[in-house]
């Protein structure tokens, strides 16, 4: 049998396979480049970047949970100028899709950051309107249609780059937010960001995270992510990128059957840095075994009862 076609096209951007490293778990790629060539990945969504550098939250910033982690990094990043001058040129030498992930405390911040990226050769911009770990901005935008709408609108007019809006699951109805950003010109949506959670040390009676609360990710959130991807892909006409607790090839297939056109993997990389590479091989084997020629043929092919 011929080799199955793993490539996907998301709003005009060609990915050699549907596996993207999730923002915040992969830095700007350089650390994992020591283990395997970044070219093996479909794409990399870079660490969330803001207009000005940010120091992030006071540690501890991570806590383990059953089948997952809570984090509250708080968008520590070198700022968009350093991203453009230092990290982006290095990444663009590599044959993989480079996605800038941007966040901001105000609509103007988002627009200015996107505008700076408009002149670069970044392939795509992911709008982080869903970070639960910053006091200003972040999920403030993503929890209301008005906020999501305002940020998407401002960024849309600031750049011609394809825009993917990353949605928070911490809302009553995620499809409403998805429809709002679609209406404002988002080219794709990615979901889910982390679920807001908390752990308390029973000896000290202090929250484990210094920020008190943080975002839950890892296998624990996978079923929630599958459900939301399914709901959103039925509600909008733009591509959905599935994120949340994906650990292996089987999870990728499941997420794509639910309606994801591509996926992002994050927390699994902490457990096994090779997880995305192994998952790509597993997806390829699944397609061969099931005589499926193109990965894109399975998108949304779940048959609901």
């Amino acid at each position: 049998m011929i080799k199955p076609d793993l490539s996907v096209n998301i709003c005009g951007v060609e990915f050699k396979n549907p596996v993207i490293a999730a923002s915040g778990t992969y830095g700007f790629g350089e650390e994992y480049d020591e283990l395997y060539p970044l070219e093996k990945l479909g794409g990399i969504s870079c660490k969330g970047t803001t207009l000005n550098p940010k120091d992030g939250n006071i540690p501890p910033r991570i806590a383990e949970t059953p089948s997952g982690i809570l984090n509250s990094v708080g968008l520590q990043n070198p700022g968009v100028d350093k991203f453009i001058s230092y990290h982006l040129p290095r990444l663009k030498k590599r044959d993989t899709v480079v996605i800038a992930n941007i966040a901001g405390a105000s609509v103007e911040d988002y627009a200015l950051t996107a505008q700076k990226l408009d002149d670069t050769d970044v392939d795509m911009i992911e709008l982080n309107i869903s970070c639960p770990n910053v006091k200003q901005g972040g999920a403030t935008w993503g929890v209301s249609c008005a906020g999501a709408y305002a940020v998407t609108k401002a960024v849309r007019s600031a750049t011609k780059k394809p825009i993917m809006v990353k949605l928070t699951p911490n809302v009553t109805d995620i499809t409403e937010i998805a429809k709002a950003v679609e209406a404002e010109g988002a080219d794709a949506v990615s979901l889910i960001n982390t679920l807001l959670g908390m752990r308390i040390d029973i000896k000290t009676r202090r929250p484990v995270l210094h920020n008190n609360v943080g975002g839950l990710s890892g296998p624990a959130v996978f079923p929630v992510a599958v459900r939301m991807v399914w709901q959103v892909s039925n509600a909008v006409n733009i591509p959905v990128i599935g994120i949340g607790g994906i650990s292996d090839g089987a999870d990728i297939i499941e997420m794509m059957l639910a309606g994801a056109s591509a996926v992002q993997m994050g927390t699994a990389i902490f457990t096994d840095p090779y997880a995305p590479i192994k998952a790509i091989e597993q997806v390829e084997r699944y397609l061969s075994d099931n005589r499926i020629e193109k990965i894109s043929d399975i998108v949304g092919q779940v048959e609901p009862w």
Partner: protein
Amino acid sequence: MSYFCERYPIIEKSSLSADIYSYTLLCPNVAAEAQTGQFVQIKAEGFTLRRPISICEIDKQKGTIRLVFEVRGKGTDKISRLNVGELMDIIAPLGHGFTVPDTLDGKAIIVGGGIGTPPMLDIAKKYKDKCTAVLGFRSFDRIILDKDYTKAGAMTIICTDDGSYGIKGTIASPLDEELKAGGVSMIYACGPTPMLKAVVLTAERYGVKCEVSLEQRMGCGVGACVVCACTVRRGGSKEQVLRVCKDGPVFDGSEVVF
């Protein structure tokens, strides 16, 4: 500098005290790259996060590394169930280690607190009798590696909080005594944060260079996720937030903002 993510055979296992285990792994590629003060990320089967454990000894000839860790929770308990002949899944070697020049002008002092004692054993083996190890523990039954430090040739001073062995109290007064005697050109320290802070202040008072190994909850362990933040002041410039896993775990004591 590169690192590996592989599974390596356990060739030796022993218990050093009630909850503290020593493992030796046969991992020639890791041993060849490893430097004193670096660490490994051990996979605990069934857990999302790996456990960062400092390297205790590196034997480049035999291609082995030794790891000493304390069972602190379910993850380290799971790892401690591994036996000789089984494989340990590690990412290693990671981080920035201690500065250990071939020769020192004066003496070296090693300060270890509890489970912070292991990562400096190779320093003692290098400087032998030109080195004093001041090691602090909670009590007699918590003492580890004292014989290893003595065997390395270091003058070894043991302190216990409850006085059940050696000097009663913390490492503070024996450290002060050693520095007062003079001729010390370097201090290496690893242990609880309050201890490290005290060591750095003492080192500054005597004008002796000091390196400390920090501990922080980690995510990836390789520098990608910026979870394990620490604040430092480098070259007189303003404070910056660095990564314990990649920029450390060893830092110049004078630059750490405690």
